[in-house]
């Protein structure tokens, strides 16, 4: 009953902007989701406007070992500088841009692969399903970190290889979710209707099934963005991340490790906080989306 309450006075045609506004309005009902969304949007804005916001060149060697909130040579360093005299705030901002870019690119690619695999497995069933599921299970049986290290160590550390590693390690998980949703959705009568008018398997998978699986996938996407951010950070920490000298949060922590005990903990703590905050943002956003989607 409640489901149909708003049907009749709705605007008949909604364009995509209105739809987005409505989705955001829905998210407003979940405070947790709003906080998460706020954090994520904050990082996205910072990344977009990095050239405008960042006070210094992130790779310029200015004054080494400056503590936060201090002014040296008329230059104000909000978060101080590192051992090479690079401004930590600027590196944080540019590093955020790189982390967000690679996390998004990697997760989206993993989704592209996982969705195709999952749809194929769930819709065609039979040996296709068994083959895909077997490969997925083999990959999932390895510890993730070992996989990453193996792949990057073999292929070399580069942005592209990080994307590849993430796709390889997380698409099986995505495939499983999509496969489960597909198995469920393919029993619906509208799928039978599409089959009985002779639609191709590709059309049924992409047009009839996929759009109806989007709800759980969007929530999972946010969670997975968080994981990928952690992964990129961890790889950077292990020295397998994005190649220097361009800033990378994980790499910043690693480089600062030696100086933490020497009286400059800010050099490691600040990038670590950035990683945690962004991951927290993604997780809260996912929680909020789930909460909103479960309400009637």
């Amino acid at each position, binding site marked *: *009953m409640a489901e149909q309450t708003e049907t009749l006075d*709705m605007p008949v045609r909604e364009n995509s902007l209105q739809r987005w506004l409505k989705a955001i309005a829905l998210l407003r009902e979940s405070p947790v989701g709003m906080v998460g969304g706020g954090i994520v949007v904050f990082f996205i804005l910072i990344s977009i406007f990095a050239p405008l916001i960042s006070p210094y060149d992130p790779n310029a060697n200015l004054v080494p070992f400056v503590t936060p909130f201090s002014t040296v040579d008329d230059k104000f360093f909000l978060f101080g500088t590192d051992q090479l005299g690079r401004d930590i705030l600027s590196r944080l901002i540019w590093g955020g841009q790189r982390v967000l870019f690679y996390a998004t690119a990697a997760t989206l690619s993993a989704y592209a692969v996982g969705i195709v695999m999952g749809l194929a497995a769930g819709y065609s069933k039979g040996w296709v399903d068994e083959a895909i599921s077997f490969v997925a299970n083999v990959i999932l049986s390895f510890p993730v970190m070992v996989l990453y290290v193996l792949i990057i160590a073999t292929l070399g550390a580069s942005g592209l290889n990080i994307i590849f590693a993430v796709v390889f390690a997380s698409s099986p998980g995505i495939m499983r979710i999509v496969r489960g949703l597909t198995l469920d959705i393919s029993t619906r009568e509208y799928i*039978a*209707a599409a089959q*009985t*008018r002779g639609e191709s398997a590709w059309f049924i998978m992409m047009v*009839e099934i996929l759009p109806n699986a989007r709800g759980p996938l969007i929530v999972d996407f946010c969670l997975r963005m968080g994981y990928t951010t952690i992964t990129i950070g961890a790889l950077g920490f292990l020295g397998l991340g994005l190649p220097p000298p361009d800033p990378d949060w994980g790499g910043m922590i690693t480089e600062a490790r030696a100086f933490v005990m020497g009286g400059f903990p800010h050099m490691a703590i600040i990038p670590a906080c950035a990683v945690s905050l962004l991951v927290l943002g993604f997780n809260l956003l996912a929680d909020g989306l789930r909460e909103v989607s479960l309400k009637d």
Partner: protein
Amino acid sequence: MPDDIRPDTDVPVLEIEDLRLSYYTRAGEIPAVMDFSLKVNAGESVGLVGESGCGKSTVANGIMRYMGKNGGIVGGTIKFKGRDMAEMSDEEVRRLRGAEIAMIYQEPMAALNPSMTIADQLTEVLTEHEGIGRQEAAERAAEMLDAVHIPDPRRLMDSYPHQISGGQQQRVVIAMALLSRPSLLLLDEPTTALDVTVEAGIVELIAELSEKTGASLLYISHNLGLMLEVCDRICVMYSGEVVEQGSIDSIFSWPKHPYTHGLFGCIPLPHADKNARPLAAIRGQLPLPHQRPKGCYFGPRCDFFVQEKCGQQQIPMEEVTTDNDPVHRVRCARWNEVDTSTAMIAGEAREPAPVGEVVLEVDNMKKYYEVKDSSFGAMLSGQSMRYVKANETINFRARRSETIGIVGESGCGKSTFAKVLMGLETATDGEVRLNHVNIGAIPVRSRTADQLSSLQMVFQNPNDTLNPSHTIGGQIGRVIKHFGIEKDPAKIHERVMNLLDTVKLPRAFAERKPRQLSGGQKQRVGIARAFAGNPSTVIADEPISALDVSVAAAVTELLMDIQREHETTLLFISHDLSAVRYLADRIVVMYLGQIMERGTTDEVFAPPYHPYTEALLSAVPIADPEIEKRRIVLEGNLPSVLDPPAGCPFCTRCPRVLGDICENERPPVQIDGEGHAIACHIPLDELRQVEPVLKVPNELEKKRSLMLKQARAKKAAAEAAAAEAAAASARARAAAAEAALADELVADADAAIKQDQT
């Protein structure tokens, strides 16, 4: 039964006054039930009838004080045996539930705990509420299972819920509810999830038990026919209000509210005919709770609506004084001026459509599913493959413009048959010829565009039939585009609009998503989609079983109109014999994958019957007290399809079973006249002797019976009035005497005062 639990006959078991219940949602407070008053006396059965969303289940939940997090009782009182339930503590209410008030829900499987044996679940009720020992509790549980007619209760008690059939599960649930000897039993659509033949057994049981135990019943259902079999009184609800209440007799004979009257017009009774007396659907749909109109909620759908009288203020319940029913009350401002009974119940008559050439031929079609049996025994005997014979030698023909009804209970193979026709499965053997081409062995992927477009389907579940992600127009347009009927987007759009007109939906719906539509509207879109490719044959798989009566009638009429217009062959698959009787020209009765009987509708619904058809006919509840019905209740359950009887599939439940021959030999197909075939060992002559299941009085008899009733009512009313008058005159005399006495006293007093003064 101990005396202390026997209901106290003076105090009503349940007394509800001006009850108001609301739900709280995003859109604010939504009143779900308003101004609801009801009295249930000891041993009485009261029915609560109405379409989905009218608030009947909410009332039941309100009585149990179980409204969930977002619901609440806003006003009014509920008295149970004279005690106000609002004044009881939570603990007291908890004790009452299950012990004094028991509830039986629609879905028996959901009411039983799947991980506990039946014995544990039953004895728990007693050890919890009465604190008796397990041994004694088990005794009582077994007795109760026996009372609900479960054969071999001891054995059943050791099984888990999933091991027994749906009908038995519901019997167990009823037994569980009765164990603590409640004085009030709430039944919320207890048979809706069951097959008709099973339903008939449960309904009989409920009626029997209420008589035997003296428990009062509140029976909630959308089915007026069931009410007739169980209840003494009924309340008809509409949009959160009771619109009419009264005894079964007065409501069925003289429905006063236009809605009640309209409901009767929507039910395909045995004397309805799709051409001569079509159903009259109630136009429009139930208003959403926050869009209820001012005044009478039924106003926008009512033919007798008058703005000044009906559209101004809340309509109060009024007593109907024209019949001899003191409890007959109606919420209609014009009940006294409008005579609903003379208004046409039936829609306009139509010419029957001429039947054309043969379009679909099904010849000895078989569909077997292979089941791997990897048990040790199967390996030893070398039979590692077993077959589920979903369809066994199906034979029939369908002509142009003809409607074939395929009837059977769940598991009879009717949906498998539809799948084979559509090509979602391929036939194991035999032929299915559509326009003289055998398509039985061609899977849907290999069918030509022509074959695909000429055979389309209307599906069962309105919430499932449309893709929630795409607009209505997009989904209909896709069919037109896919079958290449039109290429130009403007022309496709035009055709979509025309189709929406045909199914009587506003054109603006083309831009809407399915979730913005009601169930009946979605089903209309499903029909538009099926007819978009100009099919020569349409299969409708239970298209109305998920819809409310008034909506179902409209969808049925629509389906027939379009069929007539397009000269389509319609295969109407259903478990509902009354709908099939109404719609179909010819009927195929299936049981366990086999055809039991086939013939024209008149042939199938008159003797000679197949014993299974006979039982099915008797099981269908009929909402007309004038129609006499012979009761046949089938024993036992549907046999497993993996292990069907070697002979006649129906022999395990057949009331007319002959003996070994039925169990061991396939029944011969006996032909009675042209095309009426019965697969049975009993000779046709003997089957012809069988009395008809339904006795439909003709118009004259109906009128006479109604007049007789009216005369009787008038006489009784006159008597009552006379008695009243007599009582009044007696009272007047008493009053006069009293007055005289008072005068005397005054005079005495005066005298006394005077004496004092002097």
